[in-house]
C-alpha cells in the first residue's frame, strides 16, 4: 500500500500530489500493519526472542533507507501535508518490512 502511495507521491513531484488517495493508501497500510501486530502478539507457540533479534537488525537497515528517502524529499522542498504523509508512509514501511523478515525467521525457530 505504501509503495503504491510512494509511487503516486513521487510521480507528481515536484508538484503537489492528490493527497486524498495517498492518505487513503496510508491509512489502509497502517491498518494492515496494526492487524499484523495484533496477530503477532496473540501467537502462542512463537519464538519472540528470535523475532526481536532479527527485528532489531532489520529495522536498523530500514531506518537508514527511510532516512535517505526522507532526506531526498526534504531536499526537494516537499513540505506541509505532503511531507507529513510521506513521513507517515515511511514509518509504516520501516515497521512492516522488518516485521515480515523477523516473522519469517521466527516462525521456524526452535527456541
Amino acid at each position, binding site marked *: 500500500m505504501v*509503495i*503504491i502511495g*510512494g*509511487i503516486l507521491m*513521487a*510521480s507528481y*513531484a*515536484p*508538484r503537489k500530489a492528490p493527497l486524498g488517495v495517498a492518505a487513503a493508501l496510508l491509512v489502509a497500510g497502517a491498518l494492515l500493519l496494526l492487524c499484523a501486530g495484533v496477530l503477532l502478539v496473540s501467537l502462542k507457540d512463537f519464538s519472540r526472542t*528470535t523475532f526481536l533479534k*532479527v527485528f532489531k*537488525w*532489520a529495522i536498523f*537497515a530500514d531506518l*537508514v*533507507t527511510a532516512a*535517505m*528517502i526522507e*532526506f*531526498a524529499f526534504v*531536499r*526537494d522542498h516537499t513540505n506541509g501535508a505532503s511531507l507529513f504523509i510521506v513521513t507517515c508512509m515511511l514509518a509504516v514501511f520501516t515497521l512492516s*518490512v522488518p516485521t*515480515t*523478515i523477523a*516473522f*519469517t*525467521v521466527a516462525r*521456524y*525457530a*526452535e527456541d
Partner: protein
Amino acid sequence: MTDTVKDVASLMSDGPPRERAKIQVVPLKGLPIAAAAVVFVTLAIAGNWQWALVFCHVAGGGLWTGIDLFVGLVLGPILGRLSIPARAEFSARFMPKMVIIMPTVVMMTLATGFQIARKMGNLYAHSPNHPWLIASFCVVGVMAVIALGILEPANIAVLFEMNKLVPNGELIGRLMKRFIYTAGITGLMQIATLIIMTRVATQ
C-alpha cells in the same frame, strides 16, 4: 527440485549433527563499505553534485541489474545442478554477502535516480521522459515488493536455518524455491529497467 528437497532432508538428518562454522548472517566487515556508500550518496544529494549523483546511479543501477540477471540466469541454473553439500557451502558464503550488497546498491540507485530526474526536469508532466519515469517507478515498486516481502525474508530465514545444529533441509528447499519462482519476474523487471533507462538517456 523435489528430488533435491528429499536429498537435502536425508543429508541433513543422517547421523549425528556435524560441526559447521557458524554463518555470520550480516557480515560485519561489509558494514563500513555500506556506510561509506550511504555517506557518499548523502553528500551527493546534499551538495547537488552532478558527477557523484550520476556515478552512484549508474554504478549502483549497473551492479543491481547485473547481479540480478547474472544470479538469476547463470548462477541459479548452475547451483541447481550442484550436489547438496556444494550448494549449501556456496549459499553459506554467498547469501550473507547479498544481505549487504543488494540493499546498498538499491539505495544508491534509487536515491540518486530521483535527484537526477528532478535536476534534469524529467519529473515535470510536460517532459517527454515523464511517462517513462512513471513506468520505471512501477517497475521498481514491483521489484521492491518481491525483494523486501518475499526474497529477503527467505534469504535471512535460510541462513538462520543453516546455522542450526540439524538444519531442516526440506524447509531450506521450500524457502529457496521462492528465488526460482520470482527469478522470471525480477529478470523481466530488470530488462524493462534497461529499456526504460536507455530510452530516457537517449530521448
